[in-house]
């Protein structure tokens, strides 16, 4: 299925703002002959699942395990789909509503592979990237853990869990 060609990969743990324009331009520059590019931006929403106002989202990471977990997910996507380039950046730190948490871009010859790979990368990042997040607001602070929907999404792909 998947041809044995080199895939351009840029996977990053971002401690500051993610620059989506720079990342898109770098990907397009790296694979100028691609016919399709799919991107995903994930942003901090202004309210919680319960509808309360959110002041900040705090993402914690592990000093040694987090960056390799992002790289591994990107490489797994490259191995699984017929794509030409993958760009992944995931924030850590204190984020405000509207700030970008995660950015994924995938370039390929044909659109189906780019759509599926971006979808896959997001499902993996939600459950297998080494982050912990909590939201702060008038209610105080609470940890957010993967929902059953996130786990169902993840199971569509039948992969090993990161770290095992």
């Amino acid at each position: 299925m998947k041809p044995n060609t080199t895939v351009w990969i840029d996977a990053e743990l971002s401690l500051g703002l993610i620059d989506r324009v720079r990342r898109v331009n770098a990907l397009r520059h790296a694979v100028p002959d691609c016919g399709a590019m799919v991107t995903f931006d994930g942003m901090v929403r202004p309210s919680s699942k319960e509808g309360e106002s959110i002041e900040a989202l705090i993402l914690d990471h592990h000093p040694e395990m987090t960056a390799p977990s992002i790289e591994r997910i990107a490489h797994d996507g490259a191995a699984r789909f017929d794509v030409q380039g993958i760009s992944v950046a995931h924030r850590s730190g204190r984020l405000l509503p509207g700030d970008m948490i995660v950015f994924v871009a995938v370039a390929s010859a044909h659109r189906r592979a780019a759509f599926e790979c971006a979808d896959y990368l997001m499902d993996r990042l939600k459950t297998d990237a080494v982050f912990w997040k909590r939201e702060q607001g008038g209610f105080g602070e609470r940890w957010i853990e993967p929902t059953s929907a996130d786990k169902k999404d993840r199971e569509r792909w039948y992969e090993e869990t990161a770290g095992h």
Partner: protein
Amino acid sequence: MRLGFYGRISTTYGNDIDVPAVSAGLSIAELRRELARRSGYEDILDPIYRAAVNNVIVTEDHHVREGDRVDFLSPLSGG
């Protein structure tokens, strides 16, 4: 021995603690019980908090050695 705690479990034990005089050679399961006994908090007995030794996830029968870095990780939530 230094223990790290990440995510929800850090609210019980702190981010990073030094547990003196834990003898190398304990398994992860034994280390959990020792930590619960000393702290009085049993949260760490829940296997939902996975253990990593020197940045690699390990099973309950893994034995820690002198100088190992042991971390307990709450369920991950990226994206």
